[in-house]
């Protein structure tokens, strides 16, 4: 459990984090989102006692970070910025962290194998790729088998196999009842990983809600239908007070109705449906709508903006659903 209470950080006149209050609960993966410069990293650094808050308070299991005895056994963190001495071998890096917290040496080899770096344990990280450095950082976070884990942009530099692995690892850690707090810029990745979201913009809390309701509140949801008798279906829908619209390639889209209701309706009228799928916008789209005002560096082009997403993937299908397939449909 991580609790923030009115957490504020100012650098001179610039306020990086502005009266932030929220809690990160155990048992779920909580995503931490925000545009660049929103204050995510500063917030995470304050959680770890690296930066001193200007005002407010952040507590780990009820304590300030520097009151934790052997903190690695309570909270493990992977920060976005590199935190490894390139001249010390991977194993020795972990060893000195382990020793400072009374973690047995055998655990060092265990986590090295766990992250897949067993074969380069004796190599110095100065020659590591970004992905290998990231794995070493993850190993350090897991060292004390902590109940709270914090990952800042964990997939940075990882290849697809690594991305898949860390995603499942985070979910698994949460399912064991741990608190998992992850920041990322990759919305499609977050949609697959997080169940709960904390969104900040310009240092302020914008949302603290479940993934589902976040998408629901910040984007359009509708039901897509296909039927061999589209005209009859349309009539039935209109007669029931719904407003069907034309979708791509002969599909019918109905906003503001549950799939259940339409299914029952079709059954009553002995109508055959070839598709009855509730559609939800992507997390990216929802995020863009919410944070449109708080982005620092806007690119200027005549390209479609955040309000006009290229695709509106169905729920749980954000990945692998390119506009190409979208057009192909069924």
């Amino acid at each position, binding site marked *: 459990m991580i609790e923030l209470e009115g957490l504020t950080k100012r650098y001179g006149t610039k306020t990086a984090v502005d009266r932030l209050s929220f809690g990160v609960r155990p048992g779920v993966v909580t995503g931490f989102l925000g545009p660049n410069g929103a204050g995510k990293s500063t917030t995470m650094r304050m959680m770890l006692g690296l930066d001193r808050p200007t005002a407010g308070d952040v507590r780990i299991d009820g304590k300030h970070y520097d009151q934790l005895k052997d903190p690695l056994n309570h909270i493990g963190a992977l920060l976005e910025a590199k935190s490894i001495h390139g001249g010390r071998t991977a194993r020795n890096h972990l060893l000195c962290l382990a020793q400072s917290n009374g973690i047995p040496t055998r655990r060092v080899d265990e986590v090295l194998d766990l992250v897949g770096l067993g074969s380069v344990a004796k190599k110095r990280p100065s020659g590591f790729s970004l992905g290998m450095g990231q794995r070493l950082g993850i190993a350090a976070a897991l060292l004390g088998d902590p109940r709270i884990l914090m990952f800042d942009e964990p997939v940075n530099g990882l290849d697809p196999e690594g991305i898949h692995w860390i995603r499942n690892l985070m979910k698994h850690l949460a399912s064991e009842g741990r608190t998992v707090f992850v920041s990322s810029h990759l919305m499609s990745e977050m949609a697959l990983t997080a169940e709960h979201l904390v969104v900040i913009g310009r240092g302020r809390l914008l949302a603290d809600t479940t993934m589902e309701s976040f998408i629901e509140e910040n984007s359009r949801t509708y039901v897509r239908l296909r039927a061999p008798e589209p005209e009859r279906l349309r009539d039935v829908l209109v007669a029931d007070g719904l407003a069907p619209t034309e979708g791509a390639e002969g599909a019918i889209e109905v906003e503001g109705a549950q799939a259940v209701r339409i299914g029952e309706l079709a059954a009553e009228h002995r109508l055959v449906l070839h598709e009855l799928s509730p559609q939800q916008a992507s997390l990216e789209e929802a995020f863009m709508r919410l944070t449109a005002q708080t982005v620092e560096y806007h690119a200027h082009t005549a390209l479609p903006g955040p309000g006009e997403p290229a695709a509106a993937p169905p729920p749980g299908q954000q*990945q692998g659903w390119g506009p190409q397939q979208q057009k192909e449909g069924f």
Partner: protein
Amino acid sequence: MIEAVGLTKSYGDKTAVYQLSFQVRPGVVTGFLGPNGSGKSTTMRMTVGLDEPTAGTVTVNGLPYRRLPNAARQVGALLDAKAVHGGRSAREHLLCLAQLSGVPSSRVDEVIDVVGLGEVAHKRSKGFSLGMGQRLGIAGALLGDPPVLLFDEPVNGLDPEGILWIRNLMKQLASEGRTVLVSSHLMSEMALTADHLIVIGRGQLLADMSVKDFIAHNSQGYARVRVPEDRPDDPEKLRTALARAGGQLLPEEDGGFRVTGLALPQISDLAHEADVRLWELSPHHASLEEAYMQMTQGAVDYRATVDTRSSLQPLPQGMPGQGHAPQGHAPQGHGYPAGPGHPAPGAQGYPQQGYAPQPMPQQPGTGYGTPAPGGHPPQQQPWPGGAPGTQPYAAPTPGAPTSDSEAAR
């Protein structure tokens, strides 16, 4: 147009790229995929003349990069965002590049605006964030308005707004008839951006086909179905009806079902005949990631394993038990595969609970099932009329993955 013929690069006795032949055509975004160390960057470096091939050639519009007249006007590349002198301002950096390639300085301000760095154009790039550096690199690539563009991991460090922007930028560049080659590790991003894919593993070509074909070849889609909750007999009736037609009905965590082996209209008709009402009937494509994982399984360098925690004390009290079922878990069932020693319940080997009861599955990195050898013929239908032999979500077999990349080919 980029064309590689028998491209090979060796460093000592290590071969980074071996006999690679492919074409990158104009007008579409071509994704360049492969695990770490598969030779993607080396190939890109050879394309822009930074590395000399050991054998074979790679040409841009018919000529090797080094022989291109005014190459900077023909090829723009974002290879390493840090190839910028930190002491120079963003504008000065681009001005240097512009002068080198004979681009008018007015173009510099143009590209600075395009990438959204107008406000910091006169600041030294030393203080730039990774994302800002990336934007500066992209500005450099666009400077000569080149018909061929290469991007190596372009979304690195960008925030969601930047990711959306670069994605649309690449699509627009392709739609203008340019050749766009982009490498990335982010499958979900690639699925949204690329039309065509070139996949390499251990320096060799694994696939060169459209995204759609790639997914169809390497994985299987399914349909998601929900039936009324107040009629407990319906699932069984539906299962029987579907089974007769060669389909399978598998329960999902949220009370819905997954149907494999049948097309949507067939499912609809069968349900109708069996007098089962449907509350949902949605098509689900397999993801690009899933397809990719299956293809490259054998070609991964650093593979993660199990956390045994054997050297530590048992978990402190206050930790909920391991059987803790998460709520709202992604419904498409990318859950935990059961470890080899613990086959999941159910004949299909599909892990029904998503989370296996043991502390950690055996191979978290290879969560996707192994394809049945010779399994998936190319098909237009998202899933075959009947492929009961395939087990799309089977528990992984230890030791098997290495041979799978061949099997998948």
